[in-house]
């Protein structure tokens, strides 16, 4: 008999307000702890999701406070997959250059740091934008050694 792999999935829907970032981090923390994932890995995922949602609030919704953000988290076959959906302005990740801290210092800019962190902290970051419909960012991380 084929054994079924253990799948866990949860969903959180919040409004596009920065005050909800702590709720979003808590959601990731609670799900990942109960899945037995190491705290260092959870910390990295919380930061990546915070950065993704901050970008959605600031850029997709341009700080409009009543947009919807839907976060789904799934743990399957030792892989965590987080899907974040919004209905704001389409996002073109290729338009965000790789950050150069010394260049930023000279130009007084900080944009792009969040995206760089997401890519560094997760194994994979994928964007899908269907203009006029929705944007989706997919973050994934393999979990090699649960606690």
């Amino acid at each position: 008999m084929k054994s079924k792999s253990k799948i866990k999935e949860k969903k959180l829907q919040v409004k596009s307000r920065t005050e909800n970032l702590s709720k979003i981090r808590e959601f990731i923390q609670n799900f990942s702890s109960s899945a037995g994932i190491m705290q260092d890995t959870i910390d990295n995922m919380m930061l990546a999701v915070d950065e993704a949602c901050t970008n959605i609030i600031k850029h997709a919704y341009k700080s409009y406070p009543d947009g919807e953000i839907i976060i789904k988290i799934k743990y399957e076959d030792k892989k965590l997959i987080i899907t974040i959906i919004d209905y704001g302005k389409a996002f073109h990740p290729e338009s965000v250059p790789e950050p150069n801290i010394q260049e930023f210092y000279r130009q007084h800019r900080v944009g792009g740091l969040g995206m760089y962190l997401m890519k560094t902290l997760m194994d994979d970051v994928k964007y899908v934008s269907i203009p006029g419909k929705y944007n989706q960012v997919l973050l994934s991380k393999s979990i090699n050694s649960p606690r």
Partner: protein
Amino acid sequence: MAEFNTSVKNQGDISLLYLNGYLDAHTASVLENNFSDLIAKDKFKIVVNFKDLVYISSAGLGVFMAFIEKIRENNGDIKLTSMSDKVYNIFDLLGFPLLYEFYKSEDEAVKKFEETDKLEK
């Protein structure tokens, strides 16, 4: 809801800024106000103590980028101290050690300001 708060202590002409809690896009404005207040009072020598800071995102790091030039133009600096490895790692990933001085303890950062003052006199 996660909280963030700060407090400021003066030590001679050096300002010690203590951070506590979670610094993200929601709470970054608190820190922005701290820096604006210090600059308005001509306080340009700032030691930021991260001992009680639990969490930082790029929105928090951006605050340091936003004020550093103004502060250095006025012969000041922002020196960062007492960070957990977890928080330092985020600064490090983004290359901040190229542009900012990090110290293990608040005393070391204060001393560095005092030494620089002596050299300038």
